[in-house]
């Protein structure tokens, strides 16, 4: 039979079979080259693919950074996911483009430069020196081998080289510097007169047609925002603790079980006299001190008062003045040699001299309080609070879980959960997207949930929300009432409109008056001939940012055409507070031109070159982008976050 197979295997049928079998082997894995069914791609830049996964990672990272930067002000609902995603994608595209361009141009950084960069990176240093272990471990964290990291670093350094070549080579021509200094340092001689808005306010009535017209033209500014009223169930472990009953029997059990916590060891009231022995004392000196303390002991035994002698001779500055008293001590507080004697001695009996590292002591125990256990009555309140808190926390987690389940299962009402768990449904007032509630209802997470699609759009219960992680507080809410953003009715805002119209009229009147005044000034040139009564402010020659001159006046004064010799320029301004002003410009003086300071280029050179250098780097990228082959895949913004 084998012979038959051999014979047949030579025929054409065998070849067909072999070819059929080899096709799958030959094509195996080819999809990863063709990009068919492979990893989803966010964009391609000159043929380089940016994986969607990397984009997701960076969006996540950007969000984390945002959260850290904004802190408590961070509100996930306020962040436009699509915009953030687009922004991150554009960054990635530009980065990839730059790296690709650098590779295409053939920019290259030497091994030595890469090495130096790594050696100097503080992230890889331990105790101020490069540490190979740290280096490898850090890379491993990021899932990179040293070779991969070095290749990446090399690319980045090369890209930096290109950017630097452009920004560091920026120059400011002598002409530009001169012009800049002249303009920035320019001063103008001016005087002005203000016409107070209040002088142009009249009591003339405003008619209804005007009010209606104003209301219709400015309806946007009378909008009230979209608001909801909420029903909610609140679970708060503080409330639960207050309501938790703890029986005395339970407390006694805890008391018995934790006896050690309430034990009070033996305490003794001790007094002593110390004669110091320096650490490096000669033996003869030590002996002398020993003799001396013996003498003191004799004197006490002979009837002298311990108290008085301590004050007289003790060299322990803390206790000497108190007659040597150390107060109540527990065993283990003093140095061992002292401790041993103090806790062995009979009360009222003077010890032999005791040698410690400080010197020689005479010790006397004056009182002994035996070891005891705090009675139950003394610790009952403490125990009760602890037990209540513990019980409440346990109850909180238990109720929280059940609340989440029930409100999810019957998601069109809070009643079942309230009944089951013995909670009462609470009602809020109107709350907008920008807050309006207080307490837990002011939390961004709660507001975001209230306006979410599930809760507001579909009328379901929210999930269980715990706005602050370390505070045991949870809420489930649903929307009870909803009101769309709307324009407030005319009747409600009528007074406001009247006031605004009057204000506007006064402004216009003041402006008209200012203009006619300006016209007269143009004719007569001098304030005095226009009206000697006018109140004139003359700050004289001032710079662009003179703090004493109102912003509106400065803006006009520095825009007026420079007057030729002997003539003036006149303009009118409206100030922030609505007052009008007439501005008279008599002279323009350009800033001083200083090409260099002490042999160094002027500061302005750095300002100019930095601005231009940065802009040109951006322009270059933009230029490259316009020439590059960039394809952005349209993704439905998978947002599993």
């Amino acid at each position: 039979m084998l012979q038959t197979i051999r014979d047949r295997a030579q025929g054409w049928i065998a070849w067909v079979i072999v070819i059929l079998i080899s096709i799958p082997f030959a094509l195996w894995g080819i999809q990863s080259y063709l990009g068919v069914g492979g990893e989803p791609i966010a964009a391609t830049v000159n043929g380089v693919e940016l994986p969607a996964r990397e984009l997701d990672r960076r969006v996540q990272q950007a969000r984390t950074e945002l959260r850290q930067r904004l802190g408590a002000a961070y509100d996930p609902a306020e962040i436009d996911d699509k915009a953030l995603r687009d922004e991150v994608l554009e960054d990635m595209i530009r980065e990839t483009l730059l790296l690709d361009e650098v590779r295409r141009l053939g920019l290259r950084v030497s091994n030595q430069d890469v090495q130096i960069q790594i050696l100097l990176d503080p992230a890889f240093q331990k105790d101020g020196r490069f540490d190979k272990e740290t280096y490898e471990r850090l890379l491993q964290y990021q899932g990179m081998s040293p070779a991969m990291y070095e290749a990446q670093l090399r690319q980045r350094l090369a890209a930096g080289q290109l950017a630097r070549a452009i920004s560091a080579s920026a120059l400011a021509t002598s002409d530009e510097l001169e012009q800049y200094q002249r303009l920035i340092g320019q001063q103008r001689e001016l005087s002005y007169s203000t016409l107070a808005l209040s002088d142009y306010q009249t009591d003339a009535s405003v008619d209804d047609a005007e009010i209606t017209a104003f209301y219709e033209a400015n309806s946007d500014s009378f909008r009230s925002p979209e608001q909801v009223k909420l029903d909610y169930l609140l679970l708060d472990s503080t409330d639960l603790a207050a309501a938790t009953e703890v029986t005395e029997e339970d407390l006694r059990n805890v008391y018995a079980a934790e006896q050690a916590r309430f034990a009070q060891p033996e305490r003794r009231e001790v007094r002593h006299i110390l004669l110091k022995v320096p650490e490096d004392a000669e033996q003869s000196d030590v002996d002398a001190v020993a003799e001396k303390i013996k003498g003191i002991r004799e004197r006490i035994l002979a009837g002298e008062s311990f108290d008085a002698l301590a004050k007289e001779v003790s060299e322990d500055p803390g206790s000497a003045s108190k007659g040597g008293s150390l107060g109540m001590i527990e065993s283990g507080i003093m140095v061992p040699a002292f401790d041993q004697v103090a806790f062995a001695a009979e009360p009222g009996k003077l010890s032999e001299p005791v040698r410690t590292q400080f010197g020689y002591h005479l010790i006397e125990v004056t009182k002994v309080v035996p070891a005891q256990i705090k009675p139950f009555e003394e610790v009952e309140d403490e125990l009760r609070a602890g037990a209540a808190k513990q019980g409440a926390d346990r109850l909180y987690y238990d109720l929280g879980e059940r609340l989440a389940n029930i409100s999810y299962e019957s998601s069109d009402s809070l009643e079942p959960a309230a009944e089951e768990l013995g909670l009462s449904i609470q009602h809020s007032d109107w709350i907008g997207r920008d807050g309006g509630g207080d307490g837990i209802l002011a939390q961004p997470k709660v507001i975001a949930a209230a306006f979410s699609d599930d809760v507001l759009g579909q009328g379901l219960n929210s999930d269980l929300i715990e706005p602050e992680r370390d505070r045991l507080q949870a809420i489930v809410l649903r929307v009870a009432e909803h009101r769309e953003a709307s324009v407030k009715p005319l009747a409600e805002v009528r007074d406001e409109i009247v006031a605004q119209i009057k204000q506007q009229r006064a402004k216009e009147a003041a402006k008209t008056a200012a203009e006619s005044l300006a016209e007269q000034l143009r004719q007569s040139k001098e304030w005095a001939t226009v009206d000697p009564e006018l109140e004139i402010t003359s700050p004289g020659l001032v710079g662009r940012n003179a703090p004493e001159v109102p912003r509106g006046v400065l803006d006009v004064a520095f825009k007026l055409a420079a007057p030729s010799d002997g003539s003036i320029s006149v303009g009118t301004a409206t100030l922030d507070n609505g007052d009008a002003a007439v501005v008279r410009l008599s002279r323009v003086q350009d800033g001083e031109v200083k090409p260099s300071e002490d042999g160094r280029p002027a500061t302005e050179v750095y300002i100019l070159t930095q601005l231009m250098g940065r802009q040109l780097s951006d322009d270059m990228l933009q230029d490259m982008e316009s020439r590059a082959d960039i394809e952005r895949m349209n993704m439905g913004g998978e947002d599993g976050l």
Partner: protein
Amino acid sequence: MTYETDEEKVEALKKWWKENGLSVVGGVVLGLGAIYGWRLWTGHQESVAAQASSAFEQLATNASAGSPQPDAIAKQLQLLESEFGSTPYPGLGALMAAKAMYQAGKTSEATAALQKAISDAPDPALARIAALRLARIQLAEGELDAAEKTVREHDISAAFAGEFAAVRGDIAAKRGDLSAARAAYEEAIEKGSALSQLLRLKIDNLPAAG
């Protein structure tokens, strides 16, 4: 073809080898040689580029110093051009050198370096940057026609339109054509020039009869 026995098959193989063996061995040797040669060549290119990069870094450091030494920089630029002409570094080096030369008061050397930066530019964007600087130096030197020509030849990318418009505004202002200057400045601000705030001041400062 079919073979009756194994001996016949071996015979056939031997015969085939006798006829084609030399070409097979030759092919393999040639292939290996090509791979090896290619790696040698790319390795060489890499090391040339790395050397050029170091040479450029030296030039850049010199050029960014507080008071650059024009002679040393000229020498370094020459080295880049003669030794590393195949790399992008002479173009970048010329940009750096131009700045240093201009700062040292050697205006004609600076314009020459910028001309070189334009012709050696490894990327069109770099040529445009060099041209922009060239036009501005020409303007400062009062060579208005030359500046205008430089701008006309290189203002072809939307990305740099704002910067070039600002230069056109300066040229027009120098010629006293106030309305053209105003229009060009406005265009520059709109197209995102780096110095839009300064341009505003320039517009405000133009004499009134615009």
